[in-house]
């Protein structure tokens, strides 16, 4: 295995919720520009690992070293501002992004007639695509995607994956999956 310069270093992570241990002695180094697939069963701790990296939770013991990185994320839930339209949802998290650029990016995954509808009126799959575009338009060092293709059909999954790989080229990309074979790209790390 080639030597990697770790940008994200997870060391002996322990994490429990209400006495139920989710992560036990988990360690991994994730390098600059690396694509990593975190795979494991439901409840194995994949989402917890992403939350630890994003700084949304602290480990019970062990360390998470992210060395001042900027993150972007697609959460397990869409987490969109329901009253705002797709364009606003993309621009609201990135100050420097114009509406015109956001529209052009959205066009890659979402029909134009959906761009100016409140996202609460979009279908589940359409909301997911907005969440993906929002994350990809945000300038970050690492992109953490938690089951990003939930609710998308196979064609759209393919299209979205191509878009994600194009936008994150040269950046760190971490995706969670249930099965090891789900993605043919990246280094696979088993969780749980």
């Amino acid at each position, binding site marked *: 295995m080639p030597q990697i310069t770790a940008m994200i270093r997870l060391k002996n992570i322990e994490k429990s919720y209400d006495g139920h241990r989710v992560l036990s002695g988990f360690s991994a180094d994730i390098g600059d520009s690396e694509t990593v697939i975190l795979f494991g069963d439901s409840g194995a701790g994949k989402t917890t690992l992403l939350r630890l990296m*994003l700084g*949304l939770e602290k480990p019970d013991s062990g360390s998470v070293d992210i060395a001042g990185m900027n993150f972007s*994320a697609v959460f397990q839930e869409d*987490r969109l*501002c329901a*009253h705002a339209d797709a364009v606003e949802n993309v621009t*609201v998290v*990135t100050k420097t992004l114009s509406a015109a650029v956001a529209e052009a990016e959205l066009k890659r995954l979402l029909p134009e007639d959906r761009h100016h509808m409140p996202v609460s009126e979009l279908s589940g799959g359409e909301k997911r695509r907005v969440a993906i575009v929002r994350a990809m338009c945000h300038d970050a060092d690492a992109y953490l995607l938690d089951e990003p293709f939930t609710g998308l059909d196979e064609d759209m999954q393919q299209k979205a994956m191509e878009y994600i790989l194009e936008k994150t080229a040269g950046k760190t990309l971490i995706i969670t999956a249930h099965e090891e074979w789900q993605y043919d790209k990246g280094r696979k790390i088993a969780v749980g």
Partner: protein
Amino acid sequence: MRNKLRKLLILFLWIAVWQAVSVMVGNVFVIVGPWETVSALLRLMGSGNFFPSVGKSLVCIICGFLAGSALGAISAVLAYRFRVFGEIIDPFFKTIKTVPVVSFIILVLIWFNKDLTASLISMTVTAPAVYYNIKAGLESTDKQLLEMAEVFRMDPGRRFTYIYLPWLKPFITSSVQTAFGMAWKSGVAAEVIGQPLMTIGNGLYRGKINLATDEVLAWTVAIVVMSVITEHMLLLAVRKALPGRA
């Protein structure tokens, strides 16, 4: 349309009950019917004192309501942001909520000018209602959206506009609905006790000492109409101005 007609019929039913009661009592010093009340209202409207009185009460009560809303909302934001501030301010609002309005009216009359009574009392009843509503709204703000804002490092202005404000909209409209009616009732009560000249409360009091029950009811109708109209206008403005949930 059917619903509106139903409501109108119910209104007519109650007006008919009012008329029946006045006929049964048959004493104009105790109660007059709706027609006598309307004619007293028209008479008052032509007297020259009516509109300035309504205008003065309206301005005082709305000013008090707005000041109370600002005090309640700012306190709620500070209590949400700084736990210690919440611990300090909470007993203050609990006390204001519990103390009878009439005690405040007397204290305000002792401490301040009687012309300020309606405004200060409206402010006093509005502030705790707004404080508790907005605080509850802030505390229940969607945690997932707040985490999203944290990850994307959204600035405070955008968090406020896109996350907090839409979330708080139903809490703000509920505050207006609860507090505005209370502000009107307590504001007019303060005027009745404090007797500032050319106010609705003063008109009500004069109706009472002259044993003019028709005038008392006419002023009451004026209060109800003004309260309903201003509350509707305020709610409309809030719903139009704020983004988010209905």
